[in-house]
């Protein structure tokens, strides 16, 4: 790329040498093409994602507090502090339960909706597009939407409760109701995501087995259980993997709706880390917590990763 000027310089001396240099440059370009094509992308990813991640690993071994300039090495001290603190155990357990509940709700509702949307009927495209809207709503906005609906004085939920003669509830104040509110706000965005993946999976299913099953008199339930779900395995694995990842990254909804409260009732890992870092200025501890979260995510994904890969490959075969 920086060639022309140099080539011209050499060109004054001898024509033959110019050709050699040019062809050598071309050969070099071709040989290392993938590397320099990737260089800008990997450079910026390396600088902004990979390096900070490694830097966080380094900080996690220090007693790093923002206000103090001394940052002594403490080895695994932060990790031990994190693992043995009661609040971390609570938050971790809470995040796992939260993820399990959300996944159960999301996949049940999404699969049922996808099966219905997979039928041929007029106006299907319109239903589909509208179903997508919650998923692409900013999580901040989703948080405010639900915080407004669950508002204890003027919220829609309590207006409906009063309207039908029930006692209004303190949705975001009572721990279990607050947890329920967080789950509702999260699955509201998760359901469309899982649904659209399931629908894509359903539409890619081969037809002959289903026709054969109908001829053989299999009921709709049997077809779903014995054909649809097993054939959808790769897509379900991808959806599951992505949801697990994202349910351990939920931050905005918590930040907007409850700030982890009441007490620690709705605190999830990302918000817990954020608080350790930016409210308590415990950068070392927060970095250790970050790495523990990364580690947990990886462990949860190991059983799925092989599945995901075989899923991607069978998808390639279909295409």
């Amino acid at each position: 790329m920086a060639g022309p000027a140099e080539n011209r310089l050499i060109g004054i001396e001898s024509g033959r040498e110019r050709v050699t240099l040019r062809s050598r440059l071309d050969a070099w370009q071709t040989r290392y093409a993938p590397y320099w094509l990737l260089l800008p992308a990997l450079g910026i990813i390396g600088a902004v994602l990979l390096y900070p991640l490694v830097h966080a690993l380094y900080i996690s071994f220090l007693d790093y507090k923002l206000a103090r300039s001394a940052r002594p090495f403490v080895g695994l001290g932060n990790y031990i502090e994190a693992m043995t603190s009661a609040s971390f155990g609570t938050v971790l357990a809470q995040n796992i339960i939260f993820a399990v509940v959300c996944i159960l709700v999301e996949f049940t509702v999404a699969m049922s909706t996808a099966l219905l949307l997979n039928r041929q009927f007029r106006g299907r495209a319109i239903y589909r597009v509208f179903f997508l809207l919650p998923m692409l709503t900013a999580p901040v906005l989703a948080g405010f939407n639900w915080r407004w609906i669950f508002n204890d004085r003027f919220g829609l939920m309590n207006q409906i409760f009063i309207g039908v003669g029930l006692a209004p509830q303190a949705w975001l104040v009572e721990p279990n109701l607050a947890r329920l509110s967080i789950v509702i706000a999260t699955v509201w965005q998760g359901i469309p995501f899982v649904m659209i993946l399931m629908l894509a999976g359903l539409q890619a299913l081969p037809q002959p087995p289903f026709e054969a099953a109908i001829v053989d008199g299999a009921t709709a339930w049997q077809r779903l259980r014995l054909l649809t779900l097993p054939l959808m395995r790769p897509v379900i694995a991808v959806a599951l993997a992505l949801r697990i990842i994202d349910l351990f990254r939920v931050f905005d909804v918590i930040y907007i709706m409850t700030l982890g409260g009441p007490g620690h009732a709705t605190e999830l890992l990302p918000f817990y880390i954020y608080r350790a870092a930016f409210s308590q200025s415990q950068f070392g501890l927060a970095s250790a917590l970050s790495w523990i979260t990364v580690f947990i995510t990886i462990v949860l994904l190991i059983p799925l990763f092989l599945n995901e890969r075989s899923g991607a490959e069978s998808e390639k075969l279909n295409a």
Partner: protein
Amino acid sequence: MTSQAQTSRGFRFSRRRLAEDTATYVVLSVVLLIMMTPILWLILTSIRPLVEIASTRLILIPRRLVLDNYLAVFRDYEMAAYLQNTLLVCGGVIATNMVIGPPAAYAMSRYSFRGEKAVLFGLVFMRMIPLVAVILPLFIIFSTLRLLNSYAALIIAHTAFKLPVTIWLLRAFIADLPRELDDSARVDGASPLGVIVRIVIPLIKPGLAATAVLAFLATWNDLLVTLVLSNTIKTEMVALGLTKFVLEYGVAWGPLTAAGVLMFIPTVVFVFIAERYLVRGLTMGAVKE
């Protein structure tokens, strides 16, 4: 395929089919109504007079259409600045992704080279890590470089966060192109960059559009990056702007919902534009539609 199989069945059991269709409509409409409620409620609240917002009784349709809240977000709050900042950063992120992404995606899909597997895995891994884990050291780095509260910091951070998805998605689109196209051009002596600019990019325009839309929405919707990397009106983005409607004595729900509606408009527009490619984009190309 599906349509043929189902219509032929439809002719045979047309009454049953009618009943099934009706049931489908009813169930889907109910689910859709529930899913749309928060959005509808947001819009309705934004056009209500204050007496109706502060009501413990359910008032479904506003008695009077009021646009005060929309005026207030520009007059009493800094919505104009938030929108301007966000658009600038989004523009920057799309531009960098569209320049840096295609060559990388082309390399990933057309060459086999040493370290390819590591790069592939690395890109997936970067999509997996919790942002919080990166944002703290990034805060330290940017503050050392005195880049906090700058567009540059926001654009650089967002660019890196979106690039893994961009590369994966474009890679899937390029893999769909017949190899002969760019192979023959390369045999004719075109450089890899020339092939990308003249042959690949024109053929993957839908993919580029989908990628740009996803990068835009992810940046537009982001809270955490702007929350940590900016704390002045000069660079605060719209998601952080929404939190400014939470005042000491309570939430200004009228202006907040109006601001929310404004923030929601691009989402609606882009869902309709890029709907066809969303599945691919959201799964990094793993599931195709």
